């Protein structure tokens, strides 16, 4: 019925007119996400093209899965895959529980002002750039002038060139990321702990539960859903190690274990100007991440936990 359709349009326009300022406000933000997030998402099609800068994305010819076939045929690729995956897994195993532990301990501190001071201190490294931390590490571990090696020498040991030794790279990365970010990551668990129903604690005390028991039977179950959500999000980043940390600790001598997808994509895609191949590497890691995210979310639901949606 045309008349009612017209009425619908008129209602819509009237609504738009009434809310025009709100919609006007939304224009820059939505445009921002379209340009800076969705255009690059469309840009991943160059992974399926023989991309040429002069021809642009639309003008470059499609080549299907050629780039992927090439990638899977490279022995480099498997090395990078293993480096990224194992490093990320180590971070997950050691780095994920640490902030939870910190939050549980911080919460049990009775001296509130001391608690606040220590919190302030342990959040600090989060605000310092990886370049600065890399600079400190590289120099403190230097075989010629590093504090640690000077100390080793004085104790009568041989100096160790830690950053050139492939055996030290992974522990160094894991430890430094725990040092830098676990304090900060404990915030979210502290917030979750503070929203645990205090009556549960009282009831547990009346039942004669000590602090450890309360921690185990009240606090931990109370923050379980937060832990699960953060774990799912973390699993979505299973192929990511972050560019900056790895890049500043990387050198030709540890490249064998330190080359991860982020630095590899930079090396082949930007430095080597092989855009299609670089985009292929990037798309591969994004898809693996998305698959892990969806799968872990599904598993969480199946275990009757809250997922991320």
């Amino acid at each position, binding site marked *: 019925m045309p008349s009612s359709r017209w009425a619908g349009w008129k209602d819509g326009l009237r609504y738009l007119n009434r809310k025009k300022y709100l919609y006007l406000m939304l224009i820059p933000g939505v445009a921002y*996400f379209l340009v800076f997030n969705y255009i690059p998402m469309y840009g991943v099609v160059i992974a399926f093209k023989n991309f040429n800068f002069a021809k642009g994305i639309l003008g470059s010819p499609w080549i299907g899965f050629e780039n992927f076939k090439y990638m899977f045929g490279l022995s480099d690729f498997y090395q990078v895959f293993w480096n990224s995956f194992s490093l990320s897994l180590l971070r997950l195993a050691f780095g994920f529980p640490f902030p939870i532990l910190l939050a549980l301990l911080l919460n049990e501190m009775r001296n509130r002002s001391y608690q606040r001071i220590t919190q302030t201190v342990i959040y600090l490294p989060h605000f310092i750039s990886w370049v600065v931390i890399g600079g*400190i590490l590289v120099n403190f571990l230097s075989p010629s002038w590093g504090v640690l090696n000077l100390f080793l020498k004085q104790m009568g040991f041989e100096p160790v060139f830690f950053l050139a030794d492939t055996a030290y790279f992974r522990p160094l990365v894991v430890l430094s990321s725990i040092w830098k970010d676990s304090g900060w990551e404990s915030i979210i668990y502290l917030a979750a702990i503070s929203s645990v129903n205090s009556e549960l604690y009282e009831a547990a005390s009346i039942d004669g539960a000590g602090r450890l028991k309360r921690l185990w039977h009240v606090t931990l179950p109370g923050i379980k*859903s937060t832990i699960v959500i953060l774990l799912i999000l973390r699993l979505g980043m299973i192929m990511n190690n972050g560019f900056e940390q790895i890049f500043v600790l990387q050198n030709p001598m540890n490249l064998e274990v330190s080359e991860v997808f982020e630095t590899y994509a930079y090396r082949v895609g930007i430095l080597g100007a092989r855009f299609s191949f670089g985009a292929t590497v990037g798309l591969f890691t994004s898809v693996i991440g998305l698959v892990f995210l969806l799968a872990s979310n599904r598993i969480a639901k199946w275990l009757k936990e809250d997922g991320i949606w």
Partner: protein
Amino acid sequence: MKIRSFGDRLFDAFIYTVITLFALACLFPFFYVASFSVTPYAEYLQNPLKLIPSRLEFGAYKQIAEMSQMWTGYRNTVIITVTGVAINIFLMLITAYPLSKKDLKGRNAILFLITFTMFFNGGLIPNFYLVKSLHLYNTLWALILPGALGAYNLLLMKNFIGAIPKDLEESAFIDGANEFKVLFRIIVPLSKPAIATFVIFHAVTQWNTFFSAIIYTSKRTLWPLMLILRDLVVDDGGLAASDLNGGQEGVTVFTLKMAIIIFSTLPILLVYPFMQKYFMKGLLVGSIKG
């Protein structure tokens, strides 16, 4: 007061030890860097673990003050920090406010559009190509615009604004104010703690800009501080050769590197004790599910 059991005391001892050790571990590297930057090198070689030098030597800082590239780096970093924060906060406010209106039509579609960007992105090369196509390559805008608005912080801001009681707004609307007026006269003053938190977050992000500068700039004159820091402190970017020949006597590469680290981190280290009170409270409103 109840008499505390032995186990209880042991537990306390454990907590305080672990937390104190971790806090000290977080602080000591910075103390040492600051100390090494003013310690005479011979003294450092003698006892590298000594925290307080017998006399202070500021030669390295004098030398930094004469390095023109440090000042260009500072200038670039200050520009991208100030401009970046202004754009970020403005965009965040005008986008978060309409999205906090639960009855606004189309809101859910836009929220989905925004949330999706947290889980999938184009990656390095498509972003690089975008920056090239927009002619931002080798401009400071390339260090400001990509990343000027992030989904996660935007959603936190939306939740914060959504938690502000509606009555204040409504009385302003009855007085004939439009949404722009309400946003800047009523919502913004009430959101100060959240805004302060995001100013801090974005300022730190911008100050630490490194990755985007590596990809989006090739001219040394556009380098922000962190790129110069990497060149001089992590790599040996000609420090030994060019800056030490004919430099101040007694200043070694190591001391100079320590001083450069302090010099480029100082603003964060100085402001940090004052800003931490904001993110301790301001942000956590509505930040977690449930």
